């Protein structure tokens, strides 16, 4: 090594030190498996449908969608939405709404749905508009799906790229990730609004998988059909403890070719599916997709090697995120 001058030596030393401390560090406190606390003996899933949801141009009729959402909430909470959800949300709560906008306008969370829920929070729980963020992985994804980026006053809408990720790594099981600061610094609670679609690697993109949008390295966790990674990521304490409700946008159902929008495999389903149990919803979505595949003469997810075993891992005693069996779930179907 040819270092001739003290100045040169110090320059090299300091630049090396800088390389070594690029700013990230490991959060050591959470390096063990911790079970979620899922205390219910049974979960409830409400599937609320309206076969007149769309007009003659196949566009969603906003008024009917709003009625559908209200009906879904009222059915799920037995007409006590304000009282029950009010235990977790008050006027000072900062709520973020996680949508799924990867697939562009064809198969992303309906903008009308996300904003109606935001308005519902303002009107029924007294939240300030400034306290609500609608978000996804990238602002570009949101824009491609028709959302308008707003980082100023009012209901905010932006991607993780606007605020960045934590310096700390959060662990659970096999997962170790930096988390979106929307989760760690800008949200007290999260409402999850995924879509209902097939996924070309992990079989199903529903409630559990939607939280891949909260981590910096989702590309690392699609291996082994996402098992146990999808369940592990959701189990990270900052995520698991903050997501209080899942409202699945099942106005469409894509049973093959996902996650992008492939029109020939996508049908109107005109439903909203709601539960506090992400595993129970995903279990139901899996059944729906398998049935659609059967009806359309496609091989089952199991046969094509992408059966989402992660749903059942999420229900095991290590994760305890909810239920994935018929005898533990009360499915309530409501038609408008």
């Amino acid at each position: 090594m040819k270092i001739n001058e003290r100045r040169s030596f110090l320059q090299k030393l300091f630049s090396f030190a800088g390389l070594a401390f690029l700013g990230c560090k490991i959060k050591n406190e959470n390096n063990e498996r911790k079970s979620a606390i899922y205390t219910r003996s049974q979960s409830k899933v409400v599937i609320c449908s309206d076969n007149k949801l769309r007009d003659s141009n196949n566009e969603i009729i906003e008024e009917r969608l709003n009625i559908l959402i209200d009906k879904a909430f009222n059915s799920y909470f037995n007409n006590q939405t304000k009282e029950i959800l009010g235990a977790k949300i008050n006027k000072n709560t900062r709520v973020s709404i996680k949508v799924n906008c990867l697939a562009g306008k064809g198969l992303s969370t309906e903008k009308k749905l996300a904003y109606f829920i935001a308005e519902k929070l303002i009107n029924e729980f007294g939240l300030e508009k400034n306290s609500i963020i609608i978000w996804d992985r990238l602002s570009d994804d949101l824009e491609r799906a028709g959302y308008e980026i707003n980082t100023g006053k009012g209901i905010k809408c932006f991607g993780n790229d606007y605020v960045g990720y934590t310096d700390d790594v959060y662990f659970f099981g096999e997962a170790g990730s930096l988390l979106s600061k929307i989760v760690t610094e800008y949200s007290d609670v999260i409402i999850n609004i995924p879509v209902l679609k097939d996924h070309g690697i992990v079989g199903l993109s529903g409630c559990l998988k939607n939280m891949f949008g909260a981590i910096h390295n989702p590309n690392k966790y699609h291996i082994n059909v996402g098992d146990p990674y999808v369940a592990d990521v959701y189990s990270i304490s900052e995520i698991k403890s903050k997501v209080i409700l899942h409202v699945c946008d099942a106005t469409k159902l894509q049973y093959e070719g996902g996650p992008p929008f492939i029109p020939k495999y996508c049908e109107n389903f005109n439903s909203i599916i709601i539960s506090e149990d992400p595993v129970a919803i995903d279990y139901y979505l899996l059944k729906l997709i398998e049935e659609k595949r059967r009806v359309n003469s496609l091989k089952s997810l199991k046969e094509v090697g992408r059966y989402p075993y992660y749903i059942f891992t999420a229900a095991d005693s290590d994760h305890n995120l909810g239920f994935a069996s018929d005898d533990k779930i009360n499915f309530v179907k409501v038609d408008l």
Partner: protein
Amino acid sequence: MNTNRRNFIKKGLSFCTAPFLLDMFDIANEQNKYFVNNESLVEAKYYNKLDNKKIQCKLCPRECTIDNFERGYCGVRENREGVYYTLVHSQAVTFHVDPVEKKPLFHFLPGEEAFSFATVGCNVECKFCQNWQISQIRPEQTKNYYISPEKIAESTKKNNCKIIAYTYSEPVIFYEYMYDTILAGNKIGLKSVMISNGFINTEPLKKLCEIISAIKIDLKAITESFYKKYVNGELKPVLNSINLIKKSNVWLEIVYLVIPTLNDSEKEFKELSKWIKQNIGTDVPIHFTRFYPQYKLMNLPPTPIKTLNLAKEISESEGLKYVYVGNVPGNPGENTYCPKCKNVLIERTGYVIRANKIKNNHCSFCNNYIPGVFN
């Protein structure tokens, strides 16, 4: 996050480093030909187009099938409407001048310095990664510096380096950037070395071997189970890469990071040494390096020195001629010895060369041939 004096100093240093490096290496952080709509986009070299705008990457054995607007496992290659792009061409996240011994390459231009750089990303996820802050990150999550292949070659010369090193993260994932930089360096008489996990497909590796001068492979274990559990990769393709490199004209060295309780048994050291002897011969240098707790393996202690010495002993008893101990400054295992007369040929302390007694690839004591690139 707690703020204390240690954190403050760390953050301060990291904040100061990048602009300082730009100045030090005279690198302009400007946009140019690779930028499209404010992004660095260069079409990837190895992929197949599939139906429904899907693509299949053919760069590494993972061969990810990737939907539109999705990325591969590495996180730095993206499918845009059926065209596969690298997002990190000319997007260095870090660069530095290192002694070539730091790579480590002990039989390749000893004492020379290498202009070393990396982009973010990696095609595996070692639980013991020492550079996870850049290898396990996506390009949009870091501050990157535009530095073209030509500028790297120019900066290498300006800094009196003879070598360009592709290192720190995993160069395979910035293959196109590396390839163009090797060509730019070769044009002005520079050598290029890749520090890699060897997890790359045959075709791109063959092409690379036509233009690169040396490759160091991190052979992380000799069992598939270790690769599956601690690397998220596979052993067999790495062994194939080692065989392919050895058959080419590229200088090859191997590093084996010895991790307590995970890959440090006598049986593994023997199997490893036998495999090397049978497949690539006894002249290929192997470095047994010391593990320190990192990333997701914080629960293990540093490797005991005696384990490293044992590995060296076993390999030598199997007939390997150039076996080194690494990450242990002052250990005699850092030196190069003549396998015939046993004299010290290159004396090292850490990365510093104290003496070099190799003359034109021969021992200056007994004239025994010493393999490597020494001139």
